[in-house]
């Protein structure tokens, strides 16, 4: 299959791209830093991806770059079968409360721009009769929680959007997959204290690949977070006001 990956130079995207490479899939990488793109493309080629792995520049903070990057991907691959979005930004609630400019950037990147990118991808996938759109949201969007109010709000919006896409377009062949990671040890969370059930990029990638192959509309990774969140979603407000998580 032909995959376009946005943000696969690092973290969970990197791990997922490697699994796809080992299966011998055809990959096309988009991201904003050219050096990182090239290094990652060579890594995936060495691990077995179909040669060559091509790349295009695409900046999550610059929506004007989305369509050209996807166009180039379509030209190189002939046809896009699946788009995977792991690009995203994170900052702690403390950092965000202190810095409105950073808040604007994160809300824009993780909600508005991610949705705009998905819209470009959706149109192209539907035009060829469907395909897979797999996007990394977060458990942070499942409930308003003290440590992730702002980041979580952006991810909540993203999750709702992805849910809507699934409802509207599944019958036309577009499988939308909303990935909800809990805490995963990547560069994004380096230095934060891992809670119980923290995942690794490799474990996450294996499960997400199962979701992609199976067309699951929603997947919690690591799996335990599904149960954790189902409890947290049911906690009364009075409790949520008192607890720290």
């Amino acid at each position, binding site marked *: 299959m032909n995959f376009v990956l946005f943000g696969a130079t690092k973290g969970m995207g990197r791990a997922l791209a490697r699994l796809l490479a080992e299966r011998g899939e055809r990959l096309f990488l988009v991201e904003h830093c050219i050096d990182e793109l090239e290094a990652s493309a*060579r890594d995936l080629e*060495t691990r077995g991806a179909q040669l060559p792995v091509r790349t295009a520049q695409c900046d999550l903070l610059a929506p004007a770059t989305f369509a050209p990057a996807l166009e180039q991907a379509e030209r190189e691959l002939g046809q896009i079968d699946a788009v995977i979005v792991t690009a995203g930004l994170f900052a702690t609630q403390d950092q965000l409360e202190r810095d409105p400019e950073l808040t604007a950037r994160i809300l824009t990147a993780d909600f508005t721009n991610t949705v705009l990118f998905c819209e470009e991808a959706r149109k192209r996938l539907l035009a060829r009769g469907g395909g897979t759109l797999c996007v990394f949201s977060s458990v942070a969007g499942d409930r308003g929680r003290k440590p992730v109010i702002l980041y979580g709000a952006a991810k909540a919006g993203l999750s709702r959007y992805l849910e809507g896409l699934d409802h509207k377009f599944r019958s036309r062949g577009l499988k939308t997959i909303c990935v909800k990671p809990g805490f995963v040890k990547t560069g994004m969370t380096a230095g934060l204290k891992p809670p119980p059930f923290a995942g690794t990029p490799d474990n996450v990638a294996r499960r997400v690949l199962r979701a992609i192959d199976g067309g699951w509309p929603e997947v919690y990774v690591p799996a335990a977070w599904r149960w954790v969140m189902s409890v947290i979603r049911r906690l009364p407000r009075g409790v949520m006001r008192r607890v720290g998580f």
Partner: protein
Amino acid sequence: MPGHPPFRSKIAGWGRYPVVDGLVLTSESLAAATETASLSRGLGRSYGDSSLPARPDVPVADTTLADRLLHFDRTTGLLTAEAGVSLLELNRVFLRQGWFVPVSPGTQFVTVGGMVASDVHGKNHHVDGCFGEHVESIKLRVADGRIIECSDSVEPDLFRATIGGMGLTGHILEVTFRMRQIPSPWIWGESERIDDLDTMVAGLKKAAQAWPMTVGWVDCLARGRKLGRGILMKGRWATREEAPAKAPPLKRRFRIPFEFPRLALCRPSMKAFNLAYYWKHFQRIKQGIVHPDAFFYPLDMVDDWNLIYGRRGFTQYQCVLPHADDNGPARRFLEAFVAGGGMGFLCVIKDCGPEGKGLLSFPRPGMSIAMDFPIHSRKTPVLIDRLNELVIAEGGRIYLTKDTFTKAEHFQAMEPRLEAFNGVRRKWDPDGRIRSAQSVRLLGDVA
């Protein structure tokens, strides 16, 4: 691309002593992570303070996010990899494709950067030398921030000082080295129960003629006539005809869930372990097909096994003693160890081949002996002093990547090559920016 901001983290070597509340930088881009760092560290499998900062507040770069394979040439076997890639990952990717690293240490939880910086050796040292012998070039960030690609022909002094240089010449960003083609991913092994030291040493020397990989395990609590008894292991890659048709299955790993209490480390339990290990090998000689992990990495079967040594941690002492006509050096060493109150679960003995190109590389012709033991705050430094004095008298040296307690004057007495190494460091780092807790302890660096 900017790296992530530094964060506080408790860091330690594999011996879990000393522990530092360090300042860690990490990024998928080593160029970014190493910009302001005083030292790079990989998976922290060196035992003591080699991978620890000179002072808690000078940042160290954790390389493990930088794990990309940048180029592999299937005709020559040349692989270029980022320094943070682990041996575990290399084996996972390459073993089933018929390739293996030219030299492997006894654990897969090491990074390529760490393999170069310690110039690791393996069971094949007597034929293939250290890892550094197979390195073509190194991309290094030096103290003034420049990134330099060094090799035998470009900046050869820097190249030779970096191989086995314990991270003290700069930050290794990328390494190009030669992988080796193997006939199958399985090992054909033979192991033999050995009654005493003379037979062990003779056995190692004889096996070296016929086998590409050899190592001995010694019961370091046996005394008198039984001193040096143990098991001699030999191996080679199985031919395609001998090997099972299937790829070696993933080995199940176990976890040590918590620090063991001190009690687990008393002499009787170690004695029991050593006895059991020895007599498990009931037949005198066993041979057959062996899983590569069981052959190369028997200890990797248990995650976090360093926790069995409890809260106070442990250390390893590894030295190489030049050959003598009799087995006097090894005998005197083992006797001194037992007499000095030393006790341990593991003692590994191996004959080394010629000295390699690394300016401070550990191996030299002779017998290498390594043993693990728990740290006792009063007794351990005394025991190590005693062993070091013996090693100096025998003309041997110690392995820095295992060391925690050696005194500067002892190290300097066993290292005539230090002057040349210091010269290269002064040239590339006149202000002494790149340094570690170990270099402060042993080389007189300013913290």
